[in-house]
């Protein structure tokens, strides 16, 4: 979730401080005669000079050192040969694009790339479709039921990723898992001691259920919040004008939800594509590396097989893919901001 909870509030709730501080402060007290206020207005521009830069220095230095430098180091590393031997001698060898060449001609790499995209695409599709429908459902429910469903969603959202992974391993346990019991109850055969982690596809399917379960709340509550901005008057006005339900959805609801929908989709694309803990903790990318996605592949090649240069090259390529998704995301956000 945490990946989520962090991304969740990607921005300050611009209106929240007002709400938060609302009780604490009354409207600003009159500051005395106007003549006094006017010159003080001029002070707004006052703290010029070095002060803002001084205030920003600690943040800038930390970010440059521990975010900027690792990013650069990642690129440097991808042009070097750093295996077990070089790790000990601490003398990396420059090999140009060899790591990239090795990757781009390896069938394993391409299998992982295709798998990552299929996995991401399917997961995001599921999250967005179910999440949107749930948001619409939330909007049409009565107060009590909406609260019940929201609490259930919040619980799923709040559960830490590693905890949810252990729970899912337990749900899908070979011997005593509820999932096998459930399949048997539904009348399927072969679920006496079905090993859900036997193949990579099956393992990834469970990871998919896990991520979908944990991400839908974000989308659903987001869509619901978007729908509440539509306002009852708009529906009524449309209905008065004789619009059908489908028409109202197409011409009133959809245009309002569209920006929410697009932005959330890109956020989910980014989050699912870089998901590491869910995939790795579920089965370490196994069996036989068959459930590896790009971030897990990079980790296994690096930390597991001690080919740090190749692993860095995988990271660089993954980051490039993420940057492409992010550029769409930021374009959407900036457009949104312009329109407001």
């Amino acid at each position, binding site marked *: *979730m*945490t990946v989520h*909870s*962090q*991304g*969740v*509030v*990607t*921005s*300050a*709730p611009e209106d*929240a*401080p007002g709400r*938060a*501080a609302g009780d604490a*402060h009354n409207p*600003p007290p009159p500051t005395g005669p106007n003549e*006094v206020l006017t010159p003080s*207005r001029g*002070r707004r521009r006052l*703290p*010029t000079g070095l002060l*803002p*830069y001084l*205030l*920003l220095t*600690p943040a800038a230095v930390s*970010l440059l050192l*521990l*975010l900027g430098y690792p*990013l650069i180091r990642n690129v440097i*590393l991808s042009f070097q040969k750093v295996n077990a031997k070089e*790790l000990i001698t*601490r003398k990396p060898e420059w090999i140009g694009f060899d790591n990239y060449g090795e990757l781009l001609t390896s069938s394993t790499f391409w299998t992982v790339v295709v798998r990552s995209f299929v996995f991401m695409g399917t997961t995001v599709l599921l999250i967005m479709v179910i999440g949107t429908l749930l948001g619409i459902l939330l909007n049409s429910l009565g107060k009590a039921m909406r609260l019940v469903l929201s609490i259930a969603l*919040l619980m799923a959202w709040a*559960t*830490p*990723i*590693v*905890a949810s992974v*252990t*729970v899912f391993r337990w*749900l899908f346990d070979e011997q*005593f898992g509820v999932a096998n*019991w459930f399949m048997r109850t539904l009348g399927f055969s072969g679920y006496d001691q079905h090993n859900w982690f036997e193949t990579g596809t099956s393992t990834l399917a469970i990871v998919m259920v896990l991520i979908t*379960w944990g991400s839908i709340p974000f989308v659903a*509550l*987001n869509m619901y*919040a*978007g729908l509440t901005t539509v306002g009852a008057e708009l529906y009524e006005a449309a209905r008065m004008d004789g619009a059908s339900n489908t028409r109202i959805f197409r011409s009133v609801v959809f245009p309002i939800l569209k920006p929410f929908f697009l932005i959330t989709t890109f956020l989910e694309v980014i989050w699912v594509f*870089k998901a*590491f*803990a869910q995939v790795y903790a579920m089965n370490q990318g196994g069996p036989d590396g068959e459930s590896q996605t790009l971030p897990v592949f990079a980790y296994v090649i690096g930390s597991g097989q001690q080919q740090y240069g190749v*692993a860095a090259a995988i*990271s660089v390529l*993954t980051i490039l893919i993420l940057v492409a998704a*992010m550029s769409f995301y*930021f374009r959407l*956000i900036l457009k949104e*901001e312009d329109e407001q």
Partner: protein
Amino acid sequence: MSNVSLTASRAKRAKLVGKIGKNVLALCLAVLFLFPVYWMFSSSLKPSSEILTKDPVFVFVPTFEHYPTATGVDRFWTYVANSLTVTIGAVLLALIVALAASFAIARMRFRGRKGIVLAVMLAQMAPWEVMVIAMYMIMRDADLLNSIPTLTVIYFVMVLPFTIWTLRGFIAAVPKELEEAALIDGCSRTQAFFKVIFPLLAPGLMSTSLFGFITAWNEFAMVLILNKDAEAHTLPLWLTQFQTAFGSDWGATMAASSLFTIPVLIVFLFLQRRAVGGMTAGAVKG
């Protein structure tokens, strides 16, 4: 006449059926979403004999026996201490550094302000999970592996952009006139900040730090690659390796998961309202 009322009542009935259907669907979905969390807590409270059964037991006499098993694991309290240190350390550092930075961004005009706002926005999306290899090499070269302070500083940088961004909004929302009034009444800028703005920021600081807490508390990829020594593990790492230590003692595993989850659930309940509000603002305004 009767015909009209008949169709009207039919329409009413259809509406009622639709309403019931919607509520039943919502209830099923609520059960579905709650189930994993419920199953975690209930398994942690079941006697072992009723956990390892082919058909799940739904009614049982709760027992707390699994919790001592979980907390009795070697170094459990070390992991708790490590997790608390990295989390609280990271959040406090981030608050202090972010307060200064966000004040500059929210209240001052200077050259390069736009660029810095953009950089903070971008930094929020940093793909940390994909940068673990480079981070490992850097920390290895500096002999800083298996260190709790290293992890604290990394988590601090992870939560920093978000903290700056959120506090910026909170500070911008404090009316400038309040600060000006304090200045006119003879406060210095520093005094005005600590006496006027800071108290108004308290709720914002609280919720911001709680979101930071959740991020740092749950982090997995960095600690996995950097802290291979068991002494330097944190709770998430311990939890994923619980099975190697406990085999198929699912009761204890679920007790451990529950213990790990409870603080986050409490924080989340606390944040609930703001989470949803902040989320929408986030989705639209980035």
